[in-house]
């Protein structure tokens, strides 16, 4: 069920076990940069963080093993390319399976298995042409039939893949094989988001006849062994369609639930790459001479207020709570000065994110005035919090202290993630976590009344919904941008979301590993594209 871009990850990982301590934020435009270090874009602060890009560290060398310690896994780990659930799934699947399109360095969709992906004039039919000469691990050539089979599996209403929701505009019963390498995707109407949605993690292409438990893809690595909740090993695909790639011979990925275990394993040399770190680990890794890759992410850990329930049904109360938040303080204290300051609208890295909206800052006297106006001079609230992402508890505690300044007493009600998920979208006032999504994809999941499966805030505004429908239907980018800006103004003024900050993605590497890049789309390690990683 999630859908688009980062989304993929987004909700997904919110999933039970996994949602705990991962972070797989996404980003979208992120950092400027090209060259070597970069990352850390956001902060003016940001000492550091370095990563050698493919260029850095000398000439790529073949061979060697990448040993990953991955957080947030568990016995529900799976390598099902149509239903990736936990963070380790997002790490493993792209090594074995590949989608039609991936993100480029600037998070624009570019074809991967496809040669071209083009709409007709109004965006109601998309034509995908496949690259020729690509084979699956068993030697079978990739053709249009595989693409049609994959999408019909994903869209099968009886057992939908997680990506089905975001592609519901696609008329999957009538996918058309034009020739061996060409497929047409007819849609139920103009659907501008088709290409942008493809790089998400739910659209990996499987061969005709594929079933759960088969690991035959077109990817750069072949699966040797996999034990859920423990580890997987993969070897270089000698017949990979991009000759010369990948550089390393083996990829071993092991689940390490605890962050301190991951850090210790990296420092003592048992692994050479670790993901999902929180800001407090940065100093220890630096002092031990490890590399850090700190990317600005577009993921966020918001506080959600149900706009249909008192006292949050009063817009003054919502605004007052938004004004209680000292965002720079949260960014510094919780995220080590990395990541970006939030302004209560999502999709920080979407090119259409409206940076012109005035930045909300803490304004206690205005908050007190609004609360008084709403008849809530003394307000006591219960905030449900679960481990959603690194820093979740400190963020909630800071918010609690900041709201107290305006006379709002917030009681923190800590629950486990499974308890949280069990009543997800029903909590009146809670924390949450989202990976980075393009704006329209996020809206589709979160704020379109009852059609959004994850409408945590029960936001329901018919004008907003009609703006969304127009935006999705147009291929005219400037018109789409105008519509999006109008929607963001509504979000800013009246949504049930408090977004204090966008989280950084922090990965650690041994100094001998090269070829990493910023994780702009929100996952770790160059968006889990390991083809150009190499080991000294």
């Amino acid at each position, binding site marked *: 069920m999630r859908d688009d871009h980062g989304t993929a990850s987004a*909700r997904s*990982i919110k999933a039970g*076990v996994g949602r705990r301590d991962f972070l797989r934020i996404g980003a979208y435009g992120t950092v400027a940069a090209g060259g070597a270090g970069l990352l850390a874009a956001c902060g003016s602060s940001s000492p550091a963080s370095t990563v050698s890009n493919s260029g850095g560290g000398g000439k790529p060398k073949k061979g060697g093993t990448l040993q990953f310690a991955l957080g947030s896994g568990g016995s529900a780990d799976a390598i099902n390319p149509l239903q990736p659930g936990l963070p380790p799934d997002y790490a493993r699947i792209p090594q074995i399976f590949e989608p039609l399109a991936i993100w480029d360095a600037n998070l624009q969709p570019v074809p991967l298995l496809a040669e071209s992906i083009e709409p007709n004039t109004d965006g109601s039919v998309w034509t995908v042409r496949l690259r020729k000469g690509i084979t699956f691990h068993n030697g079978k050539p990739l053709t249009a039939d595989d693409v049609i089979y994959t999408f019909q599996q994903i869209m099968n209403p009886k057992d939908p893949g997680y990506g089905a929701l975001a592609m519901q505009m696609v008329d999957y019963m009538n996918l058309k094989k034009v020739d061996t390498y060409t497929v047409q995707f007819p849609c139920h109407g103009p659907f501008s988001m088709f290409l942008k949605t493809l790089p998400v993690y739910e659209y990996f292409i499987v061969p005709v006849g594929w079933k759960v438990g088969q690991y035959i893809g077109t990817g750069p690595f072949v699966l040797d062994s996999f034990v859920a909740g423990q580890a997987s090993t993969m070897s270089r695909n000698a017949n990979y369609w991009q000759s010369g790639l990948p550089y390393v011979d083996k990829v071993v990925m092991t689940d390490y639930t605890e962050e301190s275990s991951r850090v210790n394993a990296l420092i003592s040399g048992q692994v050479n790459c670790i993901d999902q770190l929180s800001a407090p680990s940065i100093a220890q890794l630096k002092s031990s001479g490890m590399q850090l890759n700190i990317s600005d992410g577009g993921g966020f850990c918001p506080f959600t207020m149900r706009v249909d329930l008192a006292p949050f049904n009063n817009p003054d109360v919502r605004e007052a709570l938004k004004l209680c938040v000292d965002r720079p303080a949260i960014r510094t204290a919780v995220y080590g000065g990395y990541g970006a300051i939030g302004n209560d609208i999502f999709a920080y890295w979407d090119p259409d994110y409206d940076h012109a909206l005035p930045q909300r800052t803490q304004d206690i006297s205005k908050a007190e005035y609004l609360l008084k106006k709403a008849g809530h001079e003394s307000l006591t609230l219960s905030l449900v919090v679960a481990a959603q992402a690194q820093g979740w508890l400190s963020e909630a505690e800071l918010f609690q202290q900041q709201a107290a300044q305006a006379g709002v007493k917030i009681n923190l009600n800590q629950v486990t993630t499974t308890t949280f998920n069990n009543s997800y979208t029903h909590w009146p006032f809670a924390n949450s976590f989202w990976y980075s999504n393009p704006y329209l994809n996020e809206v589709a999941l979160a704020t379109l009344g009852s059609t959004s499966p994850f409408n945590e805030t029960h936001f329901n505004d018919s004008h907003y919904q009609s703006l969304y429908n127009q935006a999705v239907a147009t291929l005219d980018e400037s018109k789409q941008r105008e519509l999006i800006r109008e929607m963001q103004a509504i979000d800013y003024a009246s949504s049930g979301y408090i977004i204090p900050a966008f989280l950084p993605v922090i990965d650690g590497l041994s100094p001998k590993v090269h070829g990493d890049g910023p994780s702009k789309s929100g996952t770790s390690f160059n968006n889990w594209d390991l083809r150009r990683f190499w080991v000294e």
Partner: protein
Amino acid sequence: MATEVQRKPSWRQRHDLLAVFASRLGYGLITLFIVTIIVFWATQALPGNAASAILGTHATPALVKETENQLHLNRSVFSQYWAWLSGILQGNFGHSLTNGSSVWALIKPRLINSAILVVLAAFFGSIIGIPLAIYAALHKDKLFDRVMAVITLSISAIPDFVVAVLLVTIFATVVWKVLPAVSVVPVGVYAWSTPRLLVLPVATLSLVIVPYIYRMTRAALIDAFESEYVELARLKGLRPLRVSVVHALPNALAPVIQVSGLNFIYLAGGIVLVEYIFNFPGIGQGLVNAVSDRDVPTIQFIVLSLATFYIVINILADVAVLVVTPRRRYARSAPA
């Protein structure tokens, strides 16, 4: 007593050890049965089930329902429990709800890894603790005894996880980098093929139990040394070594066996934390995962294994105590 020999001893009297063993076993089985009911009831009381745990926030109501059907979670609690229990009675431990493979295949490697950890820790704990205790008891209130009192008290005051973190800091990450900080046993092999990975977890657990073994053994020996029969043996002019080995030690064995049993039981609980810290693939880690996934058959199996272990160790310790203390056996079999 000799005159009473004419009364024919009952079966129970003739087979005192066997009788104790049989009655303990009977109670043990009843306990196990009650444990399965409590654990099953507890898993039902947790919010959410395996379906919502698997789906997480993908969990739209339709998908949850579909998944519940696939996992048979839509059946009544009683019928789920009965299906599980009747499976157990036929030697079938069921399948994991989260990944579908058989619980036995999933947990067996973990059981073996944990057993290796517990047995090694108990072994090293004993061979360190007992000789030190004997020496200290023989030299009661001397310097060694007093220094050891301080050391063991300090160690037992440190929480297990702090001991683990200290060892990691000293031997793996900060001071020296000579040992692996994390003990991820590769898939497909058991912990004994990777001895280096065992060093720190075993050291942690051994260190944690040494103070208990030491203090119990020392106290039991001192009791024995101060007893009347040892006093008598001394007065008879026997040599001190003979006094301690032949007269005192056998009488101190019972408490030592009891403390060893308790230590095994303590270790079976202690591994949960240590496995978590070292990321060691044992049943402690398996249990933590299973609970967060609401994977009822796996939870049941692990808890049942642990409960069985507790009960077996208790029975063995009781029987062993009886074997080494004939006094108690005779008291037991004497006519009322």
